[in-house]
């Protein structure tokens, strides 16, 4: 534990800022029911009310901080509830994608031969489809429930994870300590888990952060097309979509959930950059 604290206190300011942003988001997501002034579905006022600092703000008993959305729900509360759905979904999906993708990649690199050929060709085929089209096809066949959503995005993402973990593992697999463990008679699982994984961790963690953001944006674009989370559940992508027509009236409401997406993406990437920097072994001098 002390090591972990030391690790973070010695990180550069950019990583600290990123960590702060992520922590803030997770905090909001966890305590949304307690923190949010309104519930996820409650009508708080008129359609597209301006935020509280605007000259035209309409006074409420419970303040409507960021204004209201296209059917008069409190935007601030929906952002908090949206954080729950969006971040959880992105996290579960990315974790699943990494679990499947890295095991596949490591296996392909360690076993080589026909295992590698089969896995790699399957991945090639999956990657040949444009991601959005593939997602649309599967989702329209299987319906848009949350488990299906997670499965589809994890499948698409695991192909990318497969590629990178196979490449990283190939480099590690030729090291003599892996050969030494083979000569000792170790099985596949030990080689993958103890010899390859710890040495592949830095690039994979960095990739995890990036993938996390992509999933996040992908869910947003699916929601934007109406195939993501279904109303009245809030998620940031759908919030942009639902309010998008407000832009033509000069109302800035849709930019607020968009800014939330950008904010978290920047935060995650700041941390990821730091990991990448550490993974590359360059020292700040």
């Amino acid at each position, binding site marked *: 534990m002390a090591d972990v604290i030391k690790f973070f206190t*010695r990180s550069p300011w950019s990583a600290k800022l990123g960590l702060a942003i992520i922590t803030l988001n997770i905090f909001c997501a966890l305590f949304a029911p307690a923190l949010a002034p309104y519930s996820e579905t409650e009508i708080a006022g008129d359609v597209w009310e301006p935020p509280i600092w605007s000259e035209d703000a309409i006074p409420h008993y419970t303040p409507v901080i960021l204004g209201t959305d296209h059917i008069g729900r409190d935007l601030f509360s929906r952002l908090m509830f949206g954080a729950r759905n969006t971040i959880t979904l992105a996290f579960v999906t990315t974790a699943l994608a990494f679990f499947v993708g890295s095991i596949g990649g490591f296996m392909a690199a360690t076993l080589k031969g026909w295992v590698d050929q089969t896995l790699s060709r399957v991945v090639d085929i999956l990657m040949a489809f444009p991601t959005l089209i593939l997602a649309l096809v599967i989702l329209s066949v299987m319906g848009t429930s949350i488990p299906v959503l997670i499965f589809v995005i994890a499948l698409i993402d695991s192909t990318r994870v497969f590629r990178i973990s196979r490449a990283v593992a190939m480099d590690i697999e030729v090291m003599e300590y892996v*050969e030494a463990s083979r*000569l000792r008679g170790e099985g596949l699982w030990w080689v993958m888990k103890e010899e390859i994984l710890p040495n592949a961790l830095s690039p994979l963690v960095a990739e995890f952060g990036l993938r996390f953001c992509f999933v996040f944006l992908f869910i947003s674009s699916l929601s934007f097309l109406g195939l993501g989370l279904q109303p009245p559940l809030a998620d940031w992508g759908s919030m942009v979509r639902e309010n998008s027509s407000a832009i033509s009236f000069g109302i800035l409401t849709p930019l607020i959930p968009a800014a939330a997406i950008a904010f978290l993406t920047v935060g995650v990437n700041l941390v990821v950059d730091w990991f990448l920097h550490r993974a590359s072994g360059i020292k700040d001098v």
Partner: protein
Amino acid sequence: MKKTGANRLLNVHDLCIEGYQEEEWRQIVNGVSFYVDRGEVLGLIGESGAGKSTIGIASMGYTRAGCRIKAGSILFDGQELFGADYETLRRVRGPRIAYVAQSAAASFNPAHKLIHQFVEMPVQEGIMSFSKAEARAKELFRRLDLPDPDNIGDRYPHQVSGGQLQRCMVAMAMACNPDLIVFDEPTTALDVTTQIEVLGAIKEVIQAYGTAAIYITHDLAVVAQIADRIMVLQHGYEVETGETRQMIESPKKDYTRELLSVRKTRGKTINHGGEETVLAVENVRAAYGNNVIVLDGINTKIGRGKTVSIVGESGSGKSTLARVITGLLPPIDGKVHFCGEVIPPKLKNRPKELLRRMQMIYQMPDTALNPKHKVKKILGRPLNFYFGMSGKERDQRILKLLELIELGPEYMERYPDELSGGEKQRVCIARALAAKPDLIICDEVTSALDQLGAKGILKLLQNLQNELQVSYIFITHDLDTVKAISDHIVVMYQGKVVEQGPKSDILHPPYEPYTDLLLSSAPEMNPDWLDHVIKHRQRLADKGVSIRS
């Protein structure tokens, strides 16, 4: 050659360099002063970590990432390089001071032809036109004795041998006829027979052009051939500096004496063990791919508690033989017997018990240990894997193993990064010993270490053999190691056994021609040795005798 005083080219005074380690700046070079006159060769020598490369590079006003020059002065031809601006340094580096790195293979861009890499610097600096630089390249290639000097430039780096590539790099350094060249262990990565060629070429060319040089190495016998003066370094301090001959004949400091004595006093012959044969190799043929035969009809055997050295230059198939024995490369023909039984050729068909009895130690301890495992885990795993040990029992056995390799209990919790090269190799030995093997295959185990480290490892291996009666297969190109440790010698050349027999037979005349070549290529601690050997070979060549059989 030797001029003093008036013709001073480089004067380094009170140089202090810091390195960034474990989150703080530590001094790694402590107030070192030296000078190099025009046309003079200064040898920098010391163990790894002595700061010799750092000092060598600093004489170009440069430091590696993670280092910085803290104080001192680097006066090159009257110009201060410490703190000089980028533009000044750029004009000096390359045209006036050149650098030759240890590994030519890693220093050339594999995607460009040699000639294009050669001309880059002179053309970019505007010193020569392309065609002029090309002519210069051919002249230098010829001088450095490269084959087909007119066309070799059109090859890519992977199309020439290691020794040739190293000579190409020397040519590149000479491109603008610099005043000073820094050689950073240029022959360390080469085997003895190639080392001689490169060393001879370097000596010839710097003498011909009157270039001054700083020659960095950990091998005193090598530096003795080429340097006019030698500076001995230890832990970033200067130990002593002096004329080469005087330094070798009568060193003043104990440390220098120790360095000198390494080559002379390596172990005595040990006698033990019965006549039981542990491993026998019978008519083994092996190939990479389908038709590249790398081993052809190898027969040899190893007795219990004995050491067999397999000697030969790189490409002779000695490491391949180890791969066949360990099962990594199943032979296309022939058998391997272990303790009287024929063993399965493929690794995955071998039972765990067999794997336990045959262990391997690698050349590069850096890559042979998983950097993410602590010593405790590295040594604990074979104990757990082969003997099912865990908890206290395992910890105690680990402590015993650490004791065997002369390391303290505090090493249990360390990662390989926190160990020196010699300590890492010791951990590798302990990992092999943990399995209580009958046979340990040592693949060039000392060649990545400096002399003192190597001496320690060899001594340790001998003691362990006396104590535990393990057999060693010692793969090496270093004949001093062979002389020190082996009972039996197998000389290999191009995948075949040239000769084999007890040490006394092989190392005494009459020699096989190839054994003779190997023996005469090992540098001796005598400044005239190189000239002597080259003259001798020249005479043989003139008489039409081919050295390589």
